[in-house]
């Protein structure tokens, strides 16, 4: 029985020991795990893109013998089609390559026999140019469905789009047709002999609802600096771009029905290489230019200094050159990614990040290629009659170190900038995800807050620990600790809705009180010795001086408030904010950095105070006693003996406060306007990394680029605070070791 009991005790002991050890180790693991986990979400941002060949099929002889004008594929790499010059779409199932259907384009214009060229206008729509000069438009539809047994069946259809039927005369090499919003249609023809013709078809409805169509046609008369080698039109039919074999890029405004206005005429490359391909990047702002040497660049119009309101094309991004002549540029329909083809390889690049995402080597040159409507598969026909389909996996093309931390020239901006704007209403928007303004905001908020908090906290800690009477100290310390427990949302609310409007009314009070409170203090010091004799203040002797300082502080702030009204009228023409704007050009935000400094400072004061006070109080008493015994005053002892000894501890307190301020979310969220700007101005708001996460993550789609970038900023915050806290902790442990033996 007795033995049983001891055995059981021993067993319990061992089990407990194992369990407790496991528990302890779990803590370390969980810290590491947090970092691993959030990094794991952020890391795919930098994963390379990949392309997998999904099918490579030989076209049936009947098809490959005719001239192929276009190819295309569906979303799931399960179907592909080719268009031949009779206007027939042949649908193939891949990867087995059987011909499943051949559908002739509907609505063939009268007298047309053969298709000269086909223009892909996006979303599986084609404009077919017939040999009699007429254009018809068709839409290809491919869909797959899964039946109950799990078998996938494909269905396809070719339908006519009536709104874009357009007859014309003459021998046309290539043509573009666009619907112009509410103005009818526009057609651009490339005629034999390097001529460009623009035709507007205006549709007018009279009050009976009868449509009247009128055509207005003109040829572009501006002399071309070379032979025409590439032409492109934006999707709204407003601008016409042309490239020449001498490397000139031209841009016309063709939105007016009677004339084309030449806007730009520039040399693209120094070595006058021929422009071999032109394409508009998604969003129609930038144009991508490829030349005979394989150099690839994107351009968009920018308002230049000295050119007034006019915008001129400027080279914005230079992408990695391909090896050979860039024959085709395919803009992705979902992002600013560009697929470039030359004879030897397929290149995928992202415009904003200038990242070369992907290079697929080719054994045989490609004749025709197209991206699927969602941009996730690429279909190409080579000169041997093989139809190939690639599955593209391009996870986060717009993210690179350059876009996260560098200056980027975004569309619509006049110069490269650091910008954060993660989303907009339209899909073709260029996301701006620079972390620089956010990191700047974090640093700015933290620095201002520390400037406010550190002197107050450390001096107050010094006073509490060295000069205050022990009885009072027992009451004041818990008070400050309770202050540490005030939720940050409370501080943020008061800062945003109470303090900000208050300071807004009389901003000068803040500056004046910074001057007046110390001034009053000086005056008080001057009279202190005499005041002390006064019987009324006799009780405020050693260890309780701060009680007398409280009314002093209140009085100082009140005087500052009174004076600010007078100062504003006499010095700043009655309105300081107006003066600030007109003479210094500084805009005043109601929720500005002053509010942040005070609110965030207030939040970290108790943290710094508590740790610093502990450190100062832990300096062994015998040091103080020795110093005092040698005749030093209490200030000399505190300043020359105690504080230097406690310096590592005080420093660690500051570091911990710093770490807290960096990660503080609610205060920054509520007390600033959350504007991601780069400005050191005291009167502007800011947006910090942490507040940015809180603002944006509820709306970020899971595993999107934005979601991962926000995780990346969490990693940054974690690592940064980890380093600061570790340093502080090491300092503190060393400090403890030094004085632990007393």
């Amino acid at each position, binding site marked *: 029985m007795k033995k049983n009991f001891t055995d059981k005790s021993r067993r319990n002991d061992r089990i407990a020991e194992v369990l407790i050890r496991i528990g302890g180790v779990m803590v370390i693991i969980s810290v590491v795990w947090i970092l691993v986990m959030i990094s794991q979400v952020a890391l795919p941002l930098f994963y390379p893109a990949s392309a997998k060949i999904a099918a490579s099929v030989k076209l049936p002889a009947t098809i490959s013998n005719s001239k192929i004008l276009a190819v295309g594929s569906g979303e799931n790499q399960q179907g592909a089609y080719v268009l031949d010059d009779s206007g027939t779409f042949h649908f193939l199932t891949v990867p087995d390559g059987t011909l499943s259907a051949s559908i002739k384009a509907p609505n063939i214009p009268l007298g047309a026999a053969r298709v000269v060229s086909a223009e892909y206008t996006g979303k599986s729509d084609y404009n077919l140019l017939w040999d009699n000069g007429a254009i018809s438009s068709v839409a290809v539809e491919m869909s797959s469905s899964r039946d109950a047994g799990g078998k996938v069946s494909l269905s396809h259809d070719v339908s006519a789009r009536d709104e874009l039927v357009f007859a014309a005369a003459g021998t046309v090499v290539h043509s573009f047709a666009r619907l112009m919003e509410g103005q009818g249609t526009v057609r651009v023809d490339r005629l034999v002999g390097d001529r460009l013709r623009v035709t507007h078809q205006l549709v007018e409805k009279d009050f009976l609802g009868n449509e009247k169509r009128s055509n207005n046609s003109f040829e572009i008369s501006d002399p071309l600096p070379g032979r025409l080698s590439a032409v492109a039109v934006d999707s709204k039919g407003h601008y016409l771009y042309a490239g020449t074999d001498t490397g000139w890029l031209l841009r016309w405004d063709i939105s007016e029905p009677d004339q084309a206005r030449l806007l730009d005429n520039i040399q693209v490359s120094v070595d006058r290489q021929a422009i071999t391909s032109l394409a508009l990047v998604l969003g129609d702002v930038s144009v991508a230019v490829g030349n005979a040497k394989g150099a690839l660049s994107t351009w968009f119009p920018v308002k230049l200094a000295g050119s007034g309101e006019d915008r001129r094309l400027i080279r914005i991004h230079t992408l990695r050159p391909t090896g050979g002549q860039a024959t085709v540029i395919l803009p992705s329909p979902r992002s600013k990614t560009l697929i470039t083809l030359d004879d030897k390889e397929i290149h995928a690049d992202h415009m904003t990040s200038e990242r070369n995402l992907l290079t697929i080597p080719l054994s045989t040159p490609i004749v025709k290629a197209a991206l699927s409507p969602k941009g996730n598969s690429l279909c190409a026909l080579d000169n041997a009659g093989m139809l190939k389909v690639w599955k593209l996996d391009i996870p986060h093309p717009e993210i690179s170190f350059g876009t996260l931390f560098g200056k980027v020239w975004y569309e619509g901006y006049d110069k490269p900038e650091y910008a954060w704007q993660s989303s907009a209403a339209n899909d073709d928007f260029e996301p701006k995800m620079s972390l620089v303004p956010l990191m700047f905001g974090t640093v700015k908020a933290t620095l201002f807050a520390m400037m406010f908090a550190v002197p107050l906290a450390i001096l107050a800690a010094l006073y509490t620990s060295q000069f205050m009477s022990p009885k009072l100290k027992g009451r004041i310390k818990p008070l400050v600790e309770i202050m540490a427990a005030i*939720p940050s949302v*409370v501080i943020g*609310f008061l800062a945003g809705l*109470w303090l900000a409007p208050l300071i807004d009314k009389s901003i000068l009070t803040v500056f004046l009180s910074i001057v007046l409170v110390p001034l009053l203090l000086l005056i008080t010091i001057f009279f202190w010795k005499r005041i002390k004799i006064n019987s009324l203040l006799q009780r405020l002797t050693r260890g309780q001086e701060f009680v007398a300082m409280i009314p002093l502080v209140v009085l100082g702030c009140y005087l500052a408030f009174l004076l600010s009204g007078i100062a504003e009228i006499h010095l700043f023409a009655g309105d300081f904010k107006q003066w600030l704007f007109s003479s210094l050009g500084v805009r005043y935000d109601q929720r500005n950095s002053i509010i942040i400094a005070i609110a965030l400072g207030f939040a970290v004061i108790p943290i710094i105070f508590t740790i610093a006070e502990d450190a100062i109080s832990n300096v062994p008493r015998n040091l103080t006693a020795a110093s005092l015994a040698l005749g030093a005053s209490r200030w000399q002892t505190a300043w020359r003996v105690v504080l230097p000894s406690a310096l590592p501890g005080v420093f660690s307190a500051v570091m911990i406060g710093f770490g807290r301020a960096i990660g503080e979310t609610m205060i920054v969220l509520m007390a600033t306007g959350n504007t991601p700007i780069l400005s050191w101005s005291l009167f502007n708001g800011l947006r910090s990394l942490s507040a940015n996460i809180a603002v944006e993550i509820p709306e970020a789609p899971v595993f999107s680029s934005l979601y991962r970038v926000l995780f990346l900023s969490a990693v940054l915050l974690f690592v940064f605070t980890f380093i600061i806290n570790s340093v502080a902790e090491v300092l503190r442990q060393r400090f403890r070791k030094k004085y632990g033996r007393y």
Partner: protein
Amino acid sequence: MKKFWKTGEPYVLATGAALAIVLVMTITLIGTVVFNGFSYYWPKELVRFELKDGSYALGQIMQHEKNPINGDRRLQLKVANRDVFGQDFRWIDEKEITTRTLPADAMLLERREHGNFFGFLMGVTAEGLDFPAASTPNQKLELALKLVATKNQATRKIKDQMSDLNNRAERIRLKLLKLEYRDKEKNSSEIAELTVEREKAMADFNALNEQLIAARAGITSITAQFLDVTGAGKDIAVFDIVAHQYPNSMSFFAKCGAYLERVRELLLDDPRESNTEGGLFPAIFGTVMMVLLMSVFSLPFGVVAAIYLREYAKDGLLTRMVRIAVNNLAGVPSIVYGVFGLGFFVYGIGGSIDSMFFPERLPTPTFGTGGILWASLTLALLTVPVVIVATEESLASIPKGIREGSLALGATKYQTLTKILLPMATPGIMTGLILSMARAAGEVAPLMIVGVVKLAPALPFDGSFPFFHMDRKFMHLGFHIYDVGFQSPNVEAAKPMVYVTTMLLLAIVIVASSTAIYLRNRMRRKFTTSTF
């Protein structure tokens, strides 16, 4: 004087001033919250102003200030009647005022919608209610209110039945989903049965709903007629009146009564008007439940980790690393925990639970979205270091002799721990627990990401099986402050409510942390005075 400077006395005063500034700031903060929070519910007089242009205004004076444009004194008047005037507040220049009176019959109505109404009661229309001949409008209103209250009781019963039926239908729907997902053929008989049952429940629901609409119509036909200060009439359904009072003719005790009634409403009722009026009960409940749930997770882990560090681990590199890790955990920004909670708990574990146990409900997430369970776990992680540090501190303060004594008497380490050390360390552990609860109650940033919402349709704990609904979203006092104060359409009108919420949260946190600090200080004293 020179000696005075040399000894450094002035610098001592400067450090004193620093402390004074800190204290003044704290007192100002707490004072502002307490003043605004307490004064909001005190019935304020309704003042009627006659203006120089001959018009009248009735309302409560909110503040006086100098007009920034012409420098005259002006006052801000809460005129209420949002549905009539369009705005709750207006500014009146004091020189425009000719007379000011306190009409005894001016009435303040709190309504279910459109905020308060200030005006004068004229009469009550109620079909089938005979008023005693000589009754005043006020007596009529009281009678009508009573009638509406009894009628409302009946509708409430119908509503309860409806919500029961609704819950049942929803449960059957989920069951059906599951059966269909598993094997449609095999369970066809059961599916048919359940479908019939569900249809019956829905039919019952619809029948009840018609009853409810009829009953509602009967209630809303009882109206009271008011005149506002401009003399325009206004009919208000008696049902819409939450409270009414004559603030100008109330005695001090009547005002106290009204005040207490408002406090009761605050603590026990649901919010109205997108959280800017009414009570805070769901938010208080959500906060408390989340904090309790969090303690269930954080307390055992924290205590075990602290015991490991203090009693078992040898003072080596590993221990030092654990210490640093723990302190780092305490220093990691709370938003990072939120991000972790979202990625790991919500989408990671929650997503896995959904695909394993509730695949039939996808893509509607069950656990794969923010909820009280994930919020509690996230905050548990956030507050574990607090528990660890407090427990460790209290274990460390137990004199070595006690341990050695126990071991010398033949007790094993485990016995020493459970029989001697832990009972002695309990106050310290409690301190840590309370501190961690205070921290969790005030933390908002991570919660915004992992499950707090501005208005939760149901409490996370209720009478329907399985009682604790861990997957539900919840309301939280701290988030309530942020949401109402910064996201509501009419911030100016919502501000008083935010002050009240702030005061409540501050009170909870301050009471909790003072208790913890008191406990800790008492414990310190206890051990430092013992003579081991």
